[in-house]
């Protein structure tokens, strides 16, 4: 599904009840450019996690602020850029948690970044004094296809 370059953009108030609209926006564009259900559900979850983090951490639930969700499509990949103008963070401190340890401690929250890294092909954090960005991409040719079956197994 090679694509010509295109850009889609949504600016939306930083409120949790808008997460559904954000997911819908991203899913619709992903479907329009040819992604199948499986990839669409990964993209929508990764974007939801990123935006939920913005609402809770960057804006600390201040619903007067905006979140910008931009989608850039080029020949190879589908890139989502989520921008906020809230509190920054040190991307170096964002570690991929050891899930065994994490579950053993039964910690609540903080699972979002782990999911984002797992669900997308590329992820990058761009932190400036007054602007934070999460940039996530999924390739049109599934780079992770060989691993895809690992998570599809059903319980007995």
């Amino acid at each position, binding site marked *: 599904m090679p694509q010509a370059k295109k850009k889609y953009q949504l600016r939306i108030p930083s409120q*949790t*009840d808008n*997460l*559904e609209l954000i*997911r819908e926006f991203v899913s619709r564009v992903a479907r329009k450019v040819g992604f199948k*259900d499986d990839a669409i*559900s990964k993209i*929508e*979850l990764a974007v*939801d*996690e990123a935006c*939920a983090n913005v*609402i*809770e951490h960057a804006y600390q639930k201040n619903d007067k602020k905006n979140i910008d969700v931009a989608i850039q499509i080029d020949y190879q990949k589908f890139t989502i850029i989520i921008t906020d103008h809230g509190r920054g963070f040190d991307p170096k401190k964002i570690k991929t948690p050891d*899930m*065994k340890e*994490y*579950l053993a401690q*039964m*910690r*609540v*929250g903080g*699972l*979002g970044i*782990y*999911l984002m890294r*797992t*669900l997308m092909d590329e992820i990058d954090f761009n932190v400036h004094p007054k602007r934070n960005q999460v940039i996530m991409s999924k390739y049109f040719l599934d780079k992770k296809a060989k691993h895809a079956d690992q*998570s*599809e*197994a*059903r*319980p*007995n």
Partner: protein
Amino acid sequence: MTGFEVMRAENGEVTLLRLKGYLDAHTAPDLESALQKLIDEKRVKIIVSFKELTYISSAGLGVFMGFIEEVRSGGGDIKLTNMNQKIYRVFDLLGFPTLFEIRDDESHAVGSFAQPKSR
């Protein structure tokens, strides 16, 4: 009108919560309240059916994580049933199947509360 509902049914000591719609950072507090209410009533044998749940994010999973310890220390459990593949994948990615009992359907989960734990 939110996109999420929790329906509650009781079968003896066991409470069944049927989730409907989407469970994200917006609707997770509704599930939190429903579980907190059960704990307050000391109804800790809980089955959650995902049959009509269409979406879950980590905020939803975090709710189960937040209650499981308290429920188990009160002699109960939270057993999860009827997950479609999309929902199960999120649980699986985060390693939840090692922490929670996940069953195919509600009747198996109800029966398992009557039997001694195998682990």
